[in-house]
């Protein structure tokens, strides 16, 4: 079977982002961009399933501007067979992303779509669930263990109460949690090899996706700062300070 992996490019997780003083957005010019960490985990899982013989082909998909192609090359260097770049200059909502993935799913007929559980820029945590709904297929979100056999995925999910295991008939959508795996590093020879792997570029406008966005972001602000704290010298000082605040 084929596996489609969502591969979003985001501001690197180590960057301390700054809100623009006029509240129009966050500063992204000249800031380091990387793969969304959860998407690296998604790609790693797909590659492991290919190595086990469960899948034959792994396709990385990115939605974004023209220079996103370079980012998709990283996914190919990590081991994906090919890439699809859905080109658009506009920011897309999770619903538009899900509708876009659905078009690609209809064309490619994958057995599995693996996405990260959330992107670390918009922190939405929606796209995988929305795709599963539109496709009318199972979803296994926040996966920390995946086993595929006999047309079924048995997935352990990280939920608030502990670990939940569910069984889903394929095709299905899985979203990855942090503990699913440890993504591999990209090796130099693989970067060279990736240059000859195919990347299909399609215009978002040509897919017939309804990209209307009924939620608009009108203002960005820095979070409220906490007031400066005090240091105490020993356990007795800490207990006294907490008692004074009525917390002990």
């Amino acid at each position, binding site marked *: 079977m084929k596996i489609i992996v969502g591969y979003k490019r985001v501001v690197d997780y180590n960057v301390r982002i700054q809100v623009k003083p006029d509240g129009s957005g966050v500063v992204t010019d000249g800031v380091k961009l990387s793969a969304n960490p959860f998407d690296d985990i998604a790609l790693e899982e797909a590659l492991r399933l290919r190595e086990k013989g469960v899948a034959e082909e792994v396709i990385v998909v990115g939605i974004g501007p023209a220079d996103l192609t370079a980012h998709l090359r990283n996914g190919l260097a990590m081991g994906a067979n090919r890439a699809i770049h859905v080109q658009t200059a506009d920011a897309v909502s999770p619903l538009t992303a899900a509708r876009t993935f659905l078009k690609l799913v209809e064309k490619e007929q994958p057995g599995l779509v693996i996405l990260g559980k959330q992107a670390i820029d918009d922190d939405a945590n929606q796209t995988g*669930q929305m795709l599963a709904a539109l496709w009318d297929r199972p979803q296994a979100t*926040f996966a920390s263990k995946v086993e595929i056999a006999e047309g079924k995925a048995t997935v352990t999910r990280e939920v608030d109460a502990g670990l939940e295991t569910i069984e889903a008939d394929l095709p299905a959508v899985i979203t990855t949690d942090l503990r699913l795996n440890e993504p591999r590093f990209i090796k130099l020879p693989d970067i060279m090899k990736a240059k000859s792997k195919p990347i299909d570029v399609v215009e978002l406008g040509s897919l017939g996706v309804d990209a209307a966005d009924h939620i608009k972001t009108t203002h960005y602000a820095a979070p409220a700062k906490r007031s400066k704290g005090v240091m105490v010298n020993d356990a007795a000082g*800490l207990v006294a300070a907490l008692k004074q605040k009525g917390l002990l």
Partner: protein
Amino acid sequence: MSKILVIAEHLDGKLNAATARAVSAAAAAKPDAIDIIVLSDAPEAIAAEAAKIDGVTKVLAVARAENAHALAAVLAPQVAKAAAGYSHVFAPSTTFGKDLAPRVAALLGVSQVSDVMTVEGPHSFKRPIYAGNAIVTVDVDAGSTVVATIRTASWPAAASNGNAPVEALSLDATLPSHTRFVNLQQGKSDRPDLQGAAKVVSGGRGVGSKENFEIIYKFADKIGAAVGASRAAVDAGYVPNEMQVGQTGKIIAPELYIAVGISGAIQHLTGIKDAGTIVAINKDGEAPIFEIADIGLVGDLFKILPELESAIG
């Protein structure tokens, strides 16, 4: 006219407190009605609990054998059907709500507002992005259904003095059988629930081992606190994952948060930013946790925690 449908979260026949927090957010939108929907195989006891929440107009109890476990693929078509006639659908921003609400939103053909921190108006909300390092205001078109998850740490639980009527609701929805529950392994704990506790003590990599974590449990029990952990402590296998506090774990807002042996990565700080008082105990005086701590103490946790216990008496 605005009417809000709140999706009840429950487990083992008991209502989750996150539901009453979502009701508080619903009340802030000043709607004409707030109804709670309970989907279960046996919703009666849960619905009775939900009916007590202040501000609730009525409780809709949907009893179906398929609802024995909270599978999003099974619940979403029912919620989407029940949503007709409502201007808003709210769910708590727990793993339950995050799994279910986007599936409902997609069936209704709308995007979702994730992790609502404040309600500015019936169609205007604030939510965090970039791990809480920026707060955005989002406006939803007045003509479309608002589907939102409510960041539980930002809202108090509505009180339970109410007495709303409970109505049985039967929904004509075809449910899929392609997704099946296998089992749930729950972390067993007699301690207060991490997300609802007034006091939380968390341990990090500095605790050093699973065995050493006993010192954290002992201290937490002394002050009646829930126990949490940093991602480093979870990844090192000291404690189970459901104890993780942070961007990718639980986001909490206790009155008192005591971070022990936690350096304070951005990912962790996101989970505790709204705590009333943050205390940091760390042997490294340069650790980033001290930048946000209200009270800091530099020193060896293995020496300080026993001293604290005897000082408390």
